[in-house]
């Protein structure tokens, strides 16, 4: 596998590990953590990662609003999946461009206004339409904290940033049933353990009808479509705003799931808009 050369400074060197018990007996100094490898990095030892994984899984499934805990679960359980995704990205020129540019997705880096002006059947327009229909914004993604290597941390961040694109391209709203369906899709496509865990335990939060619909209609689609389509981590979505959606789906090998029932909008985007307006002292239009 041909690797592009990267500056060695980017590779995190695993510095002295943080011992768990026994240090206090011998030293007067408090525990030292290695310095962070990137902004937002919180180095943890294996015990802390395990504790966080279990804790965030338990509380995350109990309280579905804790997106930060699902993020923590993802960071701590990623393991060998991230290097594998890096290899996938490196094997493709598009993936290599992503790793070189390291683009982020939020309302400062993506021109939402321009996207809304694009023709109707383009991917960019579909994305903005999906955001409005669901009432969400791309700004509420939790940053990566617990992955030690900066490049792998970026790949994890990229996965999280692109989650909304997977929603768009598969035309799925954000309620729990469809999120779980999308997790099945992501697990089949990307192989991340957190997607598998969410897929396994997510259905516990659904009632019987929802579970039945999930299992009979969406899971077969998700697994089949996810496993046969192109590995989506290597897709440079920002280069494809003006591409026709159907062409894009054909290129990626994705077909539509059974039609979804769209719930009412979440308040995320409206709240973000209100907060911005209040911060600037403007009048708030509800």
């Amino acid at each position: 596998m041909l690797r592009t050369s990267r500056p060695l400074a980017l590779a995190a060197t695993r510095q002295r590990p943080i011992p768990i018990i026994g240090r206090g007996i011998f030293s007067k100094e408090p525990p030292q953590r290695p310095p962070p490898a990137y902004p937002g990095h919180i180095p943890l030892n294996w015990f802390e990662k395990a504790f966080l994984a279990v804790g965030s899984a338990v509380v995350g499934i109990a309280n579905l609003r804790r997106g930060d805990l699902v993020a923590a679960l993802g960071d701590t359980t990623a393991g060998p999946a991230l290097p594998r995704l890096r290899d996938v990205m490196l094997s493709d020129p598009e993936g290599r461009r992503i790793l070189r540019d390291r683009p982020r997705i939020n309302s400062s880096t993506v021109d939402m206004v321009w996207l809304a002006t694009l023709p109707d059947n383009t991917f960019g327009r579909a994305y903005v339409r999906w955001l409005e229909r669901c009432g969400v914004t791309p700004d509420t993604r939790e940053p990566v904290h617990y992955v030690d290597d900066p490049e792998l941390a970026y790949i994890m961040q990229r996965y999280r940033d692109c989650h909304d694109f997977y929603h768009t391209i598969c035309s799925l709203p954000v309620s729990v049933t469809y999120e779980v369906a999308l997790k099945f899709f992501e697990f089949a496509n990307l192989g991340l353990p957190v997607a598998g865990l969410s897929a396994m335990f997510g259905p516990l939060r659904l009632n019987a009808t929802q579970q039945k619909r999930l299992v009979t209609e969406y899971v077969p689609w998700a697994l089949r479509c996810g496993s046969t389509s192109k590995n989506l981590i290597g897709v440079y979505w920002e280069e494809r705003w003006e591409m026709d959606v159907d062409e894009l789906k054909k290129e990626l090998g994705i077909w539509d799931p059974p039609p979804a029932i769209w719930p009412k909008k979440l308040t995320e985007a409206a709240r973000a808009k209100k907060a911005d307006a209040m911060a600037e002292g403007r009048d708030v239009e509800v």
Partner: protein
Amino acid sequence: MHARIIRSATRTQFLRGSSLIHARYNHSAPPPAPNNNDTTHFGYRTVPKEEKEALVKDVFSSVAKSYDLMNDAMSLGVHRLWKNQFVSLLDPGSNGPIKCVDAAGGSGDISLRILDHAREKYADRETQVTVTDINPNMLNEGRRRFKKTMYYNTPQVNFQVADAQALDKEVFPDNAFDLYTIAFGIRNCTSIPDVLNEAYRVLKPGGTFACLEFGKVENPLMASVYESYSFSIIPLLGTILASDRASYQYLVESIQRFPTQGDFAQMIRDAGFQTGEDREGEGGSWRDLWMGIASVHTGVKI
């Protein structure tokens, strides 16, 4: 296809929250070189004195809603035992009704225990407690707790926003109180001597100063376990339960920075209080609870 992007987003990382919070995530250095007079410690960071109050206020505004849950999770419920023991040791109401002030007492834990103890043991319904806290959010949580009890809207309890380092002379006149308590609050204050001096001022002669605070564990094995637990588990519990690692990292570090029991007892004496002998235990200046994880310091104004 050309990407249309407003700003080049190469290698930008959008930090969540303020850089202040991020700076707090990762400090791992032990206490730095001695401060000059304008700075003090905030956990392991050195900050200008004026800033510490605002930083501590941020911490407590952020933890206020989940304060009780976090205390239970971090101490596995043991903090209740400590507070019970603290109030039993003080035995309020044993010499008749008293006027108490509970500083940094926003959550209402100690004040409620004082009133309950006086009522249950001595049928005392005249003892009064003034609950104070510098943080209005914490005080509101305390008010909410008291609303569930029989003491709310009675003369037995009143709530004041107050800075323990500079108590308002009208609300807290000299020689006015019989008992001054401060539980798990004094380590958050910028200047401990100021708090002690104000406590001395507002207490009547013969009044008692009592402080429940985290201490140093001398036993090496226990110290090691305790330290690992503090620095590993507690910030993670903060992340998991309260979505706030930074505040709990601060709390754990502030415990480490607090003077040892002996040093603190000396500070109490320096403020003018009479304490027991310079040792631990019955007749001493302080009592260790759970091998020194927490300790009760008492002093009397002569």
